[in-house]
């Protein structure tokens, strides 16, 4: 079996739709999902929460020596995005040149191919971000 197939399948809601969790008790929001609220512990009440996909660039780097599978995209921007709802998320910023990126610029999520397992493997789709027009 292809390595990581089951993991990808399990993570699809997170990768496709930014489904995290939140604590109904203290309103803390988590991405990736947490099963226990670190603040409320046993008194916390966790349920799924869908993030809006809107946020801003908190920090970023330009990848010039990419890992396997991303060779032909270089140079590309990898950013820490501060989501509107609070949590931080690391993601690729697409359809832009590195010089167009600035800390604080508004971004929104897009649905893209993240990596394919060669030409015959499964294609893993998921979230990336683009600058808001």
């Amino acid at each position, binding site marked *: 079996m292809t390595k990581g197939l089951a993991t990808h399948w399990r993570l*699809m809601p997170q990768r*496709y*739709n930014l489904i995290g969790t939140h604590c109904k008790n203290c309103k803390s929001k988590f991405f990736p999902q947490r099963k226990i609220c670190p603040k409320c512990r046993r008194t916390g009440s966790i349920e799924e929460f869908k993030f809006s996909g809107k946020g801003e660039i908190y920090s970023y780097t330009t990848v010039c020596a990419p890992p396997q*599978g991303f060779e*032909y*995209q270089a140079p590309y921007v990898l950013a820490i995005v501060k989501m509107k709802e609070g949590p931080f998320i690391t993601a690729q910023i*697409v*359809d832009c040149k590195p010089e167009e990126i600035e800390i604080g610029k508004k971004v929104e999520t*897009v*649905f*893209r*191919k*993240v*990596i*394919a*397992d*060669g*030409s015959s493997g499964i*294609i893993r*789709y998921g979230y*990336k971000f683009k600058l808001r*027009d």
Partner: protein
Amino acid sequence: MAVGIVGYGTYLPKYRIKAEEIARVWGKDPEAMKKGLGIYEKTVPNLDEDAATIAVEAARSALRHSGIKPADIGAIYVGSESHPYAVKPTATIVGAAIEATPELTAADLEFACKAGTAAIQCCMGLVEAGRIKYGLAIGSDTSQGMPGDVLEYTASAGGAAFIIGERNLIAQIKDTYSFTTDTPDFWRREGQEFPRHGARFTGEPAYFKHVINCSNKIMERNELKPKDFQYAVFHQPNGRFPVKAAKLLGFDQEQIKLGLLTPWIGNTYSGSTPLGLARILDEAKGGDLILATSYGSGAGSDSFIIEVTKENERRRNPTPLQCFIDRKEYVDYAIYAKLKGKIKGVVLEK
């Protein structure tokens, strides 16, 4: 009850290549190519875009416009000739990405450039039969043209999605009619990267025969004449065929101008007629009548008579197609070749 469009969404990749840049590489006269094909530039998908990602973006936009709950979608049909998998449906990827799964039926369609309108017909049938509340019909493609071939100037990427239902219609679909024959004008065999075509044979016995017959028959049986329509959109394999088809049918340039997109975005294949229709809906007013006729090689046409409702003026699409048409950045032929995986030795993992 009336069946029609509850909401729609579109998507175009950001990158463009100009016809003269392609002509430069192959030693053709750029002005002659532009004039001959009626095309200035076409869209180019990024490395991480395919027919599935385009379909998802269009579907999400259609959901925002319609305001319906994804769980109320009972069917998803995705028409494309560039489905990312030979086996594994694009429609299931879309279903998961818009949170419409698991209570629905889904399937991929293929009929050259008309699979998107075939998807609309499938949804109409299920809605009218009372089997589903809403159907999602998508036409989406990242088409390929052989390097140096005339198709390379036009084969582009883009898509549109329509939510078909019975309530809250922004446009009613009054009738649909199809005209289908076995015509070998354009084809791609299994496992082949590029399609082949019958050059001049793609005109009279193929495109024009089907588009003209289909459009005439649907007007005839509804007792309508070209002058009764505010707008018309015909499949746009290039910038010239739809203009000629309009003339032959008796439509004037004013009626087809708004939906004629190929000169600036190229032929988006399964997205072509749906995108032209979406561009018209972005501006159409209550009471406007639209004739839409697609064409798919192989060959067939689907015609629709669509009457816009007042709801379309109250609930305008928040992301009109013009946003995507205006959002663009040009690439040269070398970058285009890389993005489309045309460089030998470069395995793009697609």
